[in-house]
């Protein structure tokens, strides 16, 4: 394909003048560090002594000899699943409901998006207090009121609940963002299509699965990719609320990588984990595109 060229006469220098500064920053902050991580992942280095080339030893250790890594990987997948259900599921339900609302749509949109502008540190503080048992926090108090007192527990120190407890705030804070995007897409579904389907006797459910959802599929793919890559890079809230604990029960790959790098100062092995996280993101995006696109063609 011929590249677009709107200006008939422009010099090669002018292209470089405009292109080099952005590429320089982007290269220094993003591209070069990726290559550096790849490079470092073949070394053993604590940041002070000489770097030692170890070949694939870090990768071998990660895949065969590191239980914490696998634990963190499994936790990261659960974390991702909870985030996706809350964010995409919640977003889709609310966006659909919102289209049938006659008044107050703008207000709901604004209120719903509110948590997205609040810093993760503030959210972590807030949820630590919501989950706490002693003194009693909002969640436990709520259970006590509705007669589910048996469910009261210290959510963040119970190994069975801590992972879900640190995932929920992340899901909670971005539902509004995805709702907004899906809602905008739903509004763009042509009214004639919907009306024709209704006249043909389509139920609300058929209307949704046969008309609305296929129509918003491209946007759905984008939001799924966004939510997935954001879920896989989730770090702040688990790190701040539990630092991966108790034990490793809320350790994610990202928090494990961070601790390996900056607590154990094992830069080589931390880079190996980073490389894995990048590959994981690329594979996830590839899978989403493959699955959702294929379904569209079927």
């Amino acid at each position: 394909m011929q590249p677009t060229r709107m200006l008939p006469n422009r010099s090669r220098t002018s292209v470089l003048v405009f292109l080099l500064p952005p590429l320089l920053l982007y290269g220094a902050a993003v591209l070069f560090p990726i290559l550096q991580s790849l490079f470092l992942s073949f070394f053993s280095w604590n940041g002070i002594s000489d770097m030692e080339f170890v070949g694939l030893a870090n990768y071998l250790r990660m895949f065969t000899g590191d239980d914490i890594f696998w634990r963190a990987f499994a936790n990261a997948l659960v974390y991702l699943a909870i985030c996706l259900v809350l964010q995409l599921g919640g977003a889709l339900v609310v966006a659909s409901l919102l289209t049938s609302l006659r008044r107050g749509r703008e207000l709901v949109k604004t209120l719903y998006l509110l948590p997205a502008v609040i810093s993760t540190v503030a959210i972590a503080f807030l949820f630590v207090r919501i989950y706490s048992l002693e003194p009693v926090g909002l969640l436990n108090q709520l259970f006590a009121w509705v007669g589910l007192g048996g469910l009261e527990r210290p959510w963040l120190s119970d190994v069975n609940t801590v992972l879900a407890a640190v995932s929920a705030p992340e899901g909670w804070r971005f539902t509004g963002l995805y709702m907004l995007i899906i809602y905008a897409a739903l509004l763009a579904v042509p009214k004639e299509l919907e009306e024709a389907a209704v006249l043909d006797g389509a139920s609300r459910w058929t209307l949704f699965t046969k008309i609305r959802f296929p129509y918003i599929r491209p946007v759905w793919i984008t939001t799924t990719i966004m939510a997935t890559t954001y879920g896989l890079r989730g770090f702040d809230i688990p790190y701040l609320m539990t630092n991966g604990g108790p034990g490793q029960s809320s350790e994610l790959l990202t928090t494990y990588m961070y601790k390996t790098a900056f607590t154990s100062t094992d830069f080589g092995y931390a880079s190996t984990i980073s490389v894995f996280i990048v590959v994981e993101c690329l594979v996830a995006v590839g899978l989403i595109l493959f699955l959702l696109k294929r379904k569209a063609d079927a």
Partner: protein
Amino acid sequence: MTIQAAPPTRPPAVVPSRPAPRRRKRRPDLFHTLSRVLVMLIVIVQVYPLAWLFLTSLRSEHDFATGDPFALPGSLTWENYARAFETGNLGQNILNSFVVTMGANVLIVLLGMMAAYAIQVLGFRFSRLVRGLFLIGIIVPVQIALVPLFIDYSKVDLLDTYQSMIIPLAGFSLPMSVYLFSSFYEYIPKETYEAASLDGAGPYRIFGLITLPLSLNTVVTVVLVNSIFIWNDFIFANTFVLSEELKTIPLGLQNYIGAMGKVDWTATFAAVCVTITPLLLVFLVLNKAMIQGLESGATKG
């Protein structure tokens, strides 16, 4: 043209036959009431924690520690706010966040425009490759840059500076900015440029006199969308900044966890309220523009 007028509200016609007028009127109402209630419930879940945060910041320490967490404050007190300002460095933190957000935004807007101009307007052989390179930055997680940048910064003495936060924040936001600007530049008609070219304007003058002024709306979008993420950045600041004078808001808030993990909750909540106020105000005032920006960011990006 259909003979029957389309009903204003869509009836949930499960039966293939057209619903009788009376049913059509009643059933949707039930559906609407239900969805209204559900939407309201969900909104409460979204907003109540924040309202609670604010109310708690006005309760006295003793009242909060002993009382029902849901209770409304018995008496309002501003003393938590006084304690919050005493404990921390809130003013300095807010100033630092402001500097970092401004610095990163200037880079993102300026460089994003330049890259988009080169890719979309000037055009060159490998423009598709460059576009692809920028896509990487949207997909890869920011954590990949932590270790390399930490090492690089310590070599060039950039650790513990404003730049150490601004560079990666701007770098990782640049791709979205490039995409937003170039999808806008697609809509500037070719004739505008051709006319200017005939008048003898070169690529620099055209950028300054035509493209830049036309981009102002997109600038607002780019700044609003990125500011949310940059203002709240925790991970880069936490990794690269140590000294108290450079701490941004998210780091400053951590100071409220005292020794032995003991937390002065009401003062902490007061501090949280102070720190979320600037962005919250911007959001509430500009929420139309911000919402539009977030929508277009996802659908075009």
